[in-house]
């Protein structure tokens, strides 16, 4: 490999290099990190954020943002627990469609529209649950279970969603349009792309993915809680950004987002193993997010 292609490889996989270094440092300080069971745990912990972040990737690539994914996840899980899992998925996609409609046809900035949905979806979760956690049914509980002793389903689901996301982004017209819309909405419009209708689908997908993440979370816990997944939207955005996507749109990849979600999970797990007090963990995570974004911005210069 020539110097140029090595450099190109490194610049496209900066997040991956960061993940490996992070894992190495933690492993050196606490060998128990490399324990197979622990690594599986990391994967399971990453799954919920990753699935949510894959949906967020569509939105960010298309130049938007979705603050409502945490609330949608909670609402979908709650509806799933009170009725049935698939109904939860449907509700999530519907919430996303409403986001999309407010943004494309109501011309609201995505930040505002999804901020409103964050509140509405969380409020509905509280209303439906009457403030109480509700047990999930067998189907949803199965989503959080292990297929075999060392084969957790959430991990497999994460990989499946990863594949689907990559496929949508690179192999479908909807995906190609996301890059065009995020890169230059006006040029996309003048090329005959129905920007408004595509945005509907993009936000609906984000809602659907958030709902799936919510069901996996509820499945793992065996119950849907009224305050579940609160603040997860920020982790999802962080994962997407650590993965190298640009919040100004047009740039982002499924692999990047997967790595971003793993970075967050490895970090949390490592900090626990190293017995860093939880209050300090938040500080460290914040610093890492800033560092990742900083490195990315330096690399692009």
């Amino acid at each position, binding site marked *: 490999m020539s110097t140029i292609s090595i450099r190109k490889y490194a610049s496209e996989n900066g997040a991956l290099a960061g993940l490996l270094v992070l894992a190495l440092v933690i492993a050196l300080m606490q060998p128990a990190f490399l324990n197979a069971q622990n690594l599986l745990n990391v994967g399971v912990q990453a799954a919920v954020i990753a699935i949510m972040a894959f949906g967020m990737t569509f939105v960010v690539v298309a130049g938007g943002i979705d603050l409502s994914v945490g609330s949608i996840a909670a609402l979908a899980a709650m509806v799933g627990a009170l009725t049935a899992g698939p109904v939860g998925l449907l509700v999530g996609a519907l919430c996303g469609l409403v986001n999309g409609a407010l943004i494309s046809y109501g011309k609201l900035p995505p930040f505002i529209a999804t901020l409103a949905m964050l509140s509405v979806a969380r409020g509905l979760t509280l209303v439906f649950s009457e403030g109480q956690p509700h047990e999930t049914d067998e189907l949803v509980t199965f989503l959080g279970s292990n297929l075999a002793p060392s084969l957790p389903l959430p991990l497999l689901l994460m990989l499946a969603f990863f594949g689907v996301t990559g496929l949508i982004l690179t192999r479908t017209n909807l995906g190609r349009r996301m890059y065009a819309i995020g*890169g230059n909405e006006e040029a996309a419009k003048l090329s005959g792309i129905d920007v408004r209708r595509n945005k509907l689908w993009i936000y609906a997908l984000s809602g659907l993915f958030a709902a799936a993440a919510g069901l996996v979370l509820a499945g793992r816990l065996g119950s849907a809680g009224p305050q579940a997944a609160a603040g997860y939207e920020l982790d999802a955005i962080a994962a997407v950004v650590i993965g190298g996507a640009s919040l100004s749109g047009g740039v982002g990849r499924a692999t990047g987002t997967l790595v971003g979600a793993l970075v967050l999970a490895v970090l949390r797990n490592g900090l626990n193993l190293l017995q860093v007090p939880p209050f300090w963990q938040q500080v460290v995570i914040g610093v890492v997010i800033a560092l990742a974004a900083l490195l990315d911005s330096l690399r692009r210069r």
Partner: protein
Amino acid sequence: MNALITARGITKHFGATKALDGVDLDINAGEVHVLLGENGAGKSTLVKVLAGIHGHDAGTIEGRASLAVIHQELALVPELSVAENLFLNRLPRRFGFVDRAEMRRRAPELLRKVGLNVDPDAKVKDLGIAQQQMIEIARALDKDTSVLILDEPTAVLTDTETDRLLEIMAQLRDNRVGLVFITHHLDEIQRVADRITVLRDGRSVGVLGPRATTQHMIELMVGRPIDEQYPRARQRPGAPLLHIQGLTRRGVFEDVTIEVHAGEVVGIAGLVGAGRTEVARAAFGVDGYDHGTVAVDGKPLPRHNVQAAIKAGLGLVPEDRKGQGLVLTATVGQNLELVTLDDRDEKRLHDIAGKLRIKGRVEQPVKELSGGNQQKVVIGKWLLADPKVLILDEPTRGVDVGAKVEIYELINRMTAQGRAVLLVSSDLPEVIGMSDRVVVMAHGRVAGELPKGATQDQVMALAVQEIPA
């Protein structure tokens, strides 16, 4: 000699490409030194090296301390006043607060230097682009700048504004300022240049004196003889393909009727603000309109519907390449396939990229291409869709001579295949040279139509005419 800046053997690489290759350049006090070259020849890179924005890999530069660059994108703060912009970054202060009185006192003197008569308290955003440019020049002069580099300043100016700028440049030259002037307009060069350094492929290929002919400049620039600047190959017109009938949007354009036949190029000339772009956008369905009809090949189009217009066989290359034409974050290939996503054909895409002679690979980010090559990508995405009628809005703005001729050849090829072209252009020689008929617009109406061979005077006479309300 009184050289203010002496650059010798400047070489600069970007990755594997050599952007500058051993360029020498002297800038003397009291001269206008023109940098001429096609897009991608290395002018901007040279300017950036001189200004210290880019480093250089080899060569020496002496005396670049007092240099200011006026870029095409102006570095002004729209919400601040003229005076505040003039002293941005070094506002006069008293007791730690901004000394407005001092600022107002010094501003007029600076504005006089560039012959600008505006209220120092006016907000910059309320001024025209030409005035904003002058403010930036004035700001540079306040810092005792001895070398002023103007990077395509006239690209955004009207003819009168350009005249004004050239006068100011001549005045600054008389005051012993060294000026570096970049422009694609050869007539401007003939009016102000003392020396012309021609760049091609990152090398300096010649230094010309003030009396160089346009022919000589062009040939040095493209590195081969150019037979004809406007190689229009006329076709016998066929059936009408585009019919705009009585198109009206209140307050913008009124009762515009234009017909374009198969094999024909119809030009739309007019002053800036005459409503040409607005009509083009409305016809293509980007914007709506109040009355009238647009029909392609006899089929009327629904209003305000780009998808339907494309389906019917209409295409539009918009005037603002970066803002409306390209997805700069994407690759050449991704830009080319934008219109034809539903009907993708890798082989045709590569065919077209080859035919357009786009310098650069299909996988290359489009932002790395020069202006001319970027414009070819925008046109290429429409060629892939093979429209019956293509509307070109200022297709050669900011495009170098070589690429211009290639774009004209593409127009010829389209009409030879029985397609039609509607050419909106502010470049009078171009719109006259490449059109079979020229429709002149003034104040949102069609002021008249001229046959092939009309003169610039005839076009201007129609363009400036007052139309009774």
